[in-house]
């Protein structure tokens, strides 16, 4: 590997997190409109779920089409425990995460024995069942109209009851999630997960207990999603089942794939692109085609995503990084580089 490339990689590995943190800190100084901040809060919340999905899909190679269920269990757990039982919101967040972990563990034992399409279907089915519980268990969840009056999170004197404070809270959580996840990816555990993705037979032959690690990462992934759901509840302060259905599960997978599933930074890109693109098309299409209805936005959205996937099947983040890292190789071969080239520590 040339010195030039080593230097470039080292630069980006230190510069990227620092620049991101700085720009997140400073951004509200330039624009603190409620619209921008709340969009960024949502990008943050979705990013946590999408990172958790990337750990599961991109590293361990196990698909989940039911992640909105874990996200919803966090949201409803927090809502029910605070509204109906008056529990402290932080305790509710932890209790909801613990409960979600337990459910993920119980679901994971049988379903993670399945592979690929079958696993996708099983998790999809799980998501549908949880959604039905949200809408039908009226006594607990308030049914289709949901629950309201969810209290704000607070720390001492500081109550997170406005967009600015919540923006900082959520992004602190996102950066912490990234920190934990990139530690995992570069560790013994991360290698075991990638080995499972590469070849389960070979991983087992090297002593990796594939069933145990798949279950561990599934449970961890569910915990992250649940915490993101709790953060959603305490931000919006009222919930109903609609953001926790099948559509949302698919949207999480979409965000993960667009950003690049085998990457910890990719989700930030994927989530932002999907959200901004949706907004942009909503504004742009009526200007270009005055008579077009909402369906034209969907068509354009689909087209753009297809183009991204055709030219960068490894996702936007990795796709752009790899080309920048080694443009020559990219003109010759299209095999994606191992994700770890970007993320391993060179200690």
């Amino acid at each position: 590997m040339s010195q030039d490339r080593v230097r470039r990689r080292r630069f980006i590995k230190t510069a990227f997190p620092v620049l991101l943190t700085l720009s997140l800190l400073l951004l509200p100084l330039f624009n603190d409109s409620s619209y921008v901040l709340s969009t960024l809060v949502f990008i943050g919340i979705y990013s946590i779920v999408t990172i958790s999905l990337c750990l599961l899909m991109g590293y361990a190679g196990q698909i989940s089409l039911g992640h909105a269920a874990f996200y919803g269990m966090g949201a409803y757990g927090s809502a029910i425990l605070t509204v109906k039982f008056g529990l402290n919101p932080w305790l509710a967040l932890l209790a909801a995460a613990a409960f979600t972990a337990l459910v993920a563990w119980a679901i994971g034992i049988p379903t993670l024995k399945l592979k690929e399409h079958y696993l996708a279907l099983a998790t999809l089915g799980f998501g549908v069942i949880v959604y039905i519980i949200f809408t039908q268990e009226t006594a607990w969840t308030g049914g289709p109209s949901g629950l309201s009056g969810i209290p704000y999170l607070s720390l001492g004197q500081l109550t997170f009851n406005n967009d600015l404070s919540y923006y900082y809270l959520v992004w602190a959580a996102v950066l912490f999630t990234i920190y934990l996840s990139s530690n995992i990816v570069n560790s013994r555990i991360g290698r075991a997960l990638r080995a499972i993705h590469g070849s389960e037979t070979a991983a087992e032959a090297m002593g990796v207990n594939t069933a145990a690690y798949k279950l561990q990462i599934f449970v961890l992934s569910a915990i992250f999603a649940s915490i993101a759901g709790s953060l959603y509840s305490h931000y919006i302060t009222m919930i109903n089942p609609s953001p926790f259905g099948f559509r949302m599960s698919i949207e999480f997978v979409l965000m993960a794939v667009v950003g690049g599933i085998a990457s910890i930074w990719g989700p930030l890109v994927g989530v932002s692109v999907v959200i901004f693109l949706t907004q942009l098309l909503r504004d742009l299409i009526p200007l270009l085609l005055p008579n077009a209805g909402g369906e034209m936005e969907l068509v354009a959205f689909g087209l753009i995503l297809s183009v991204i996937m055709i030219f960068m099947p490894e996702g936007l983040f990795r796709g752009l990084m790899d080309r920048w890292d080694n443009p020559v190789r990219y003109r010759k071969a299209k095999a994606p580089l191992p994700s770890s080239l970007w993320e391993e520590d060179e200690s």
Partner: protein
Amino acid sequence: MTLLEVRSLSKSFGGVVAVAGVSFSIQQGQICALIGPNGAGKTTMFNVITGIYQPDSGQVYFEDRLISGFKPHQIAGLGITRTFQNLQIFENMTVRENVMLGRHVLTKTGLFSAALGLPASRRENRACRRLAGDFLAQVGLADRADEPSANLPFGQQRLLEIARAMALEPKLLLLDEPAAGLPGGETRELEQVILRLRDQGTSILLVEHDMETVMNLADNIVVMDFGYKIAEGGPAKIQKDPQVLKAYLGEEDSDA
């Protein structure tokens, strides 16, 4: 001392008998070769020893302990690992990380200490990284350590698979056709690597079609044909065994 003992082992798939009542043993510090024509049951034998298949009858003992019924990762934990005939490199990792993965059973970091980046886990990771470099140097791949493993040419991928298995510091290493597809020069290098491993105390079970390699390396040879063991002994004896010549080396040609 007997390291591994296979006792009257049988395995069939549907109506096809892949291994039929085969017994043999591997002595500590020995290179044992398992040979036979295609379909003789060699790879099935590998898969039973490493726990991928369960035997229909018969047992496998490792250090006098019954290991049939164990899961593959448990068997690896006891110090038995393998390479694959159709390479099983982790292409989503760098060369070095493939070897680091080989240290899995010898390292301890769990999910939580990894996630929090605790000092113990970082220390272990650094040590593992260094050791991986040493193992790569032993097979001559040190200078390619940080490349994507998919970039290596075929022969070097074979060496990488061996380095990965070496990293587990196995007591018994099963090599499934390590010389297949290698040009002659690389095969000689491979033989040196295997002999060094044996000298360092690793016992080896070798499946190989290249007779020259088998005769150069093996202390003991087990010959299988259609699932049955038809002969066993040192290279000199096997080369003269009439049944082996008939089944495997060809009836007319005895100097292959």
